[in-house]
């Protein structure tokens, strides 16, 4: 996980990029999913905004790519004590264990709740798109 770096090497500490490796032995394995983390000035009083690329296929990711996770929601479970590691682990965990009660995009949610095989197929296609180079 690295802060966004300008060409002169200076760091933009409010915007970080990270890669979330899919958990081993899950559909999401063997790929690293790009993530941007934008910290508001008020961090840690306010949570960072965590985004996958737009159109990321997951029931709890909005079409814009923003991750819908209670610990990232100021009005839900965000606490200033939540560390970045916990956030990243939370997002990694979310990949393979979506929360159908909190849908953020319709296509993935629909297939996840109604046609699990088709959902898994879509996830596998996405995994290939973000496959690790050495795989």
């Amino acid at each position, binding site marked *: 996980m*690295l802060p966004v*770096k300008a*060409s*002169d*090497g*200076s*760091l933009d500490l409010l915007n970080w990029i990270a890669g979330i490796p899919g958990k081993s032995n899950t559909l999401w394995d063997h790929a690293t999913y790009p993530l941007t983390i934008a910290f508001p000035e*008020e961090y*840690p*009083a*306010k949570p960072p905004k965590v985004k996958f690329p737009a159109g990321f296929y997951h029931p709890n990711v909005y079409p814009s790519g923003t991750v819908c996770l*209670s610990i990232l*929601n100021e*009005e*839900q*479970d965000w*606490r*200033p*004590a939540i*560390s970045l590691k916990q956030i990243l682990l939370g997002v990694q965990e979310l990949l393979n264990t979506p*929360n159908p*009660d*909190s*849908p953020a995009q*319709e296509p993935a949610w*629909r297939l996840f709740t*109604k046609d699990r095989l*088709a959902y898994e197929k879509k996830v596998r*296609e996405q995994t*290939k*798109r973000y*496959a690790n*180079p*050495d*795989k």
Partner: protein
Amino acid sequence: MNCKFFGALTYTVNLNFHTASLVNDQDSVRLLEIRATLIDHLISLISDESVLRTGLFVIKKMFSNLSLLFLNSNGTWENPLLTFISSVAANRATESTISLEELDSLLISMPWQNIWIFTIFSQIIAEDLVKKETTSLSNVQTHNLVHRHLFPTTEKLMVVSSKTSGDHKLVVAWLECLSAWANYASKAEFDSTERYNMANLLSICISLITNSDFSITEKAIETLSEILEINPTFFNSNLKSELQSLLFGNVGVQYVSYFSSQNDEKSVCDFARLIIAFLDSDLSGLVLKLNDDKYSHVFDFLVGLTDFPGVAIDEENVSKEFADFWLRFADYCLVEDTTLQALMEKDPASYEILNDKVKMLFNKITQIYWKKAHVPEDVAHFKQEFALYRRDIGDLFESVYPLIKLPLVVNLLSTVHSSLQTGDLDSIEPSLFLANYISKDFGEEGADSQLIDLVSLILDASLLPTVLQSKSNEFKYLINSTIQFFSTADWFYKTQKGSTYLPQILGFLFDCMINSNVYQLTSSKAIADICNECRFSLVEFLPSFETIISEMISNISVDSLVRQRIINSYASIIQGVKNPVIQGENLKKLFDLLDSKSMLIIPKLDAANAEEREVYVDYLTSLISCVSAVGKGMQLPEEVDGYYTEEQEAAVREYWDADPLALHDKLLTIVRNFNMTNQILSDNYSILEETVNLFKYGLTETISGPFVIDYTTILQFIVTKSNTLQKPNALPLLFSLLGSIIVAHYRTIDRELLNSTIDTIFTSKMAIVEDDPDLVQSSLNLFGSMLTVQPSLLIGNEPLLTILLQFGVRHLQSNERFVLKAIEKFWTRIITLRKGDRQDTMAMRRIFNETELGYVLTFNVLKYMFATQRSNLETFIEIIKQLVAKYPLMMSKWLNDSFPKLNQERAKKIDNWEIFVKKILLTRGTREYTLIWKKEESSRLQSVATKNFHQRVTLGKEVHFGDLGHREPCSVLALVAVNFSTDSEQHLLERDVFVDESFQRVLANTLDAWVLSVVLEFQKLQSRKSKQLVGLFVEERQPHLACFVYHRHRQNVSIVRLCVVDVALLASPGTIILLEQLLVAAIVRTGWVAEVVCLNKRDGGLDVEKVRFVLHSQSLVLGLFDSLAVQDGLSGVELIVGARTRVGSDGLEGLVGALCVVPSFDLVSFFNVWVHNDGSSWNQRQTLSAEILHSGTFECHHGANRNVELTRVLVPKTNVHGKSSLVHQNNVSSVERLTGRLGNNLLFLLHVFQDTNDVDHGASLQALDLVERSKVKVQLWNVGIVLARLHHSIFIELQLVLVFEVRELRLCHLHRRLTDVENLVLLQNVPELVCNLVESSGSDLSGLVQQVHVEQLSVSSLVGPVLHVALKRNSGLDGPRVLEEWPQETESSYCLWPEPGP
């Protein structure tokens, strides 16, 4: 022995069960008996040689039991270790303990086995203390007890133990005990005010490094590493210099060379870990040492260790340990560069030298790691761990690049070039691999001409052919790294020179992709990226693509993603061609190919077995998605104006209207083949999805194009497809496609055709649609879209409208969120008819007014709203809101008719609905409506909450407010909440709400016994006037209330209460006294404006005279500092009596009272340091404080008060008080005030240290530790001062970390979504107050407030911090309501404050 162990275990179980009750019952006799029994058992166990030999686990279990007893003793057992030692000495359990003074002689007289056993016991207690989780209050008591009694005994024991000659295991136990205590001490220092001096023990530990027994040396090294990692501040300067001379002196060198010669890499690795832990604690010091030649041997040693011989991971891990370290060091050099520059401002030459040295150092380091990154000769050794190691090296190079800059990449690429010439292929791979890490983020600006030339040179030297020839497995990393390098080198292709190499590079990538499955994904991605980035440069390359495209489409085994990527790449290039003729020709070839290949497979489907069929269907799906992807790729940019010249655009239109190659027909043929010819494909969701997509891509185009198909043809497709679909699951796709057609063509669409299409896909399938929520949702979305763009399309179709209205009412009962959203859209559109013409409006009015629709809709909305989940309420609210707004008169009737009928149906009746209806109608659909509605919802929960409260009162439980053990009966009144939804502030002020004297008078009279929270919406109240009013109000009310306006950066109203929940003592012991006197401190922050109130508290009550308002950040700090009258060292610090107000700074002119600007609340944002730098000792004291003129600049790192000139700095007066003495003002020959961000300032500190002989280098670490984010950020806001005496020659004033939590009342957030309705649970009438306060009060505002007081306080007084009702949180908010009535005599889980201890 096992039997004995189970006996011990039985004790554990019983102790766990019964100790707490014995302690609570204060059954000290019984407790003493148990203790004595355990000790007697232990004495007999340790006297038994066989147990000592083979049954240590039994002894340890028994020690755990004693430890458990101690931890639960609530402070009644002060020193278990001493008790045990005394008992062993007396050979029986005894309560009388020997004194510490006698302990030495007693221990010396004992056999070493006893010392060993005692050490183990001490270790077990320390470990259990770390594990212990208790309330903060009893925790602090325990920490105090341990520090006072247990640690001194342990220290003596360990000192004696270190001198005792005994078995090897005694030393091991000693080291483990030290480690356990360091761990505990670190925790205790954070949790309490206790400070541990472990120097003595650590010194012994350091001496063990030179022990002749290497196993002890290793253990000592491991222990020291652990402690340094846990808390480096335990090491004072003496210890550090001792350690430094050991690590980097002869001992270290000999140690490394000895173990290297013994091939004992693990020992060297452990040693390296210790060195790194040591250096990590002082990176800034290390940077500065670079400039000092006397430390050059240190860096030589580190470089030598990094270059430890052997293959990384496989044979050595030392370089792995150092990779992370060098990365941190490089980042440090980079991030702190400006600080270094500032530090050496007076000596620029020295800064330049330092820079050169940094470069030289990292030159050496990168060379070492370049070597280490080589793929092992036997690629089987290239394991996952090695891959991670190489990634770390890549990160290191990325971090080092800004320091060394261009030469680093040039060096790597030059290596590639020279290796090509010498045929040393092994050196190419790591060079490209590492160069990629640096160059991947170059962008166009990053491309230096030297690099362009170098890459060209490499390509001219036949890099790619050379790599391609190396296809055996051992070169797979070379190929992969080459692909990776060129996939991100757009900085190279985008230059004129680079673009000439594109064919060569693409040829290489294609070759990799086609000839091996291993590289398919990476190379196809590289191709897609390059084609996307350089489409205009690749037009010439189109013919070369044809063969590849043919292969991609024809070869069924090609991965579908790879196929799609390559066809996308092809489409990207075609799209870049503005000549429609060339576009058409290429598309024709592509479509022909796709068509012919698909037609080869489709006929085989029916005869294929299941497995083959799956492969075929996947392949065909991939082909149709390729067509769809081409459609997407061919879309014109959103800003089409200017994309074509007029001539070009005319040519495009003409070409595609004429469609000489009949591509539209071809496309439709493909669509037909995939959708109509075979039932397996026809029912396939993905194929229809891609087909719908490709139609949609053309629908939004403004100019004719290959995918722009006549809409009537698409309608025809929809009808045909709908008739042939055997499974309805794909029907939503057709609804969606029809919706897109309507949005694109609503002005011109043939209504008859549209109606018949709707009839086919919806009306005739009603039976199917009704049963499937997805179909309900998608069809409602379709009709919602029609109503959005052209309501007459639907309203003009009366039979359809009739069906839909019934349909819309029926599905209000849905439980699916997406269906309800579609319902909401449908009904709100049909009620509001925003795009409707007069005819539509008249028609709908007639239907609502003349039929039962309005009533039926109202009734059903209410009915299902009461049954739905909380998170769905908004849907129903919105519909009612629109009905009220649009049909206010009729709505009254509908509501009045609906509620009685609802009550007939419901078991639980809705009371007082008439009042509710009146209120709803009064709002006329405005925002207040929502508030009232929320109240209504919340009131349903009210009775349970009230009952719980009374239950609590009955039980005699008080509502407590306060902290630090104080008990203040307290109630909190949420009094004024103003809804500003439509009012400007000016408007508000005109209403005289806040200037009304009677209002303030009422507040004054009402609130003597109350803590008031005034609620204002932040954005509307930013004017000076409003702040002034609030300031005046606060000023007037001091000290009886702590009043804060708490603003949040969002559009809602919050009622908040701010309570101090904890006060962290982070520095010298005296500070806590200061903090304890601050009962309530609160910050209101809006932008950089904050309001701070500190109330001093004595004797459990608020002290009128001790309120202090601070105006400015500097004033905040200096002001508080100013108020410190130091008595008896810091321990006597107290706030100076007497409130003082000041006029605010420029930006806050006219403010009186509690307004201030603070730089930041994010931890310690700055600190001041006083250093005596004339070299003499500072142990004098006993002087008065004085002002010292200061000419420095106070630099605030953000906020408005940047670079404020300071005119004075205060140094506290100090008294002689042993070790706690502070800086003696008289001796301050010069004072350096150093401010800024903490991180930057650590270097300032170091600079100071460097210039001061009598300086503790550990001080910076201590400062760092004080503000370690993870420790402090658990709390929401921090502000204040921490006084830290880091060394007797350094005095640091840090921001006080006053940790408190913003606690929102349950009744807050009036504008939040209804999902948070539980916040309103106790708020019976405040919403009405909010809505009506301004309007209803008229001139008799005070009367209103009184009325509120009388009527509502009985309710709002329940809203203390200890509500006896809980709504458990469900993050999804979809579960059932969970307001619970607690069983009798159950405490609230919300009780934040610990009950005062005994």
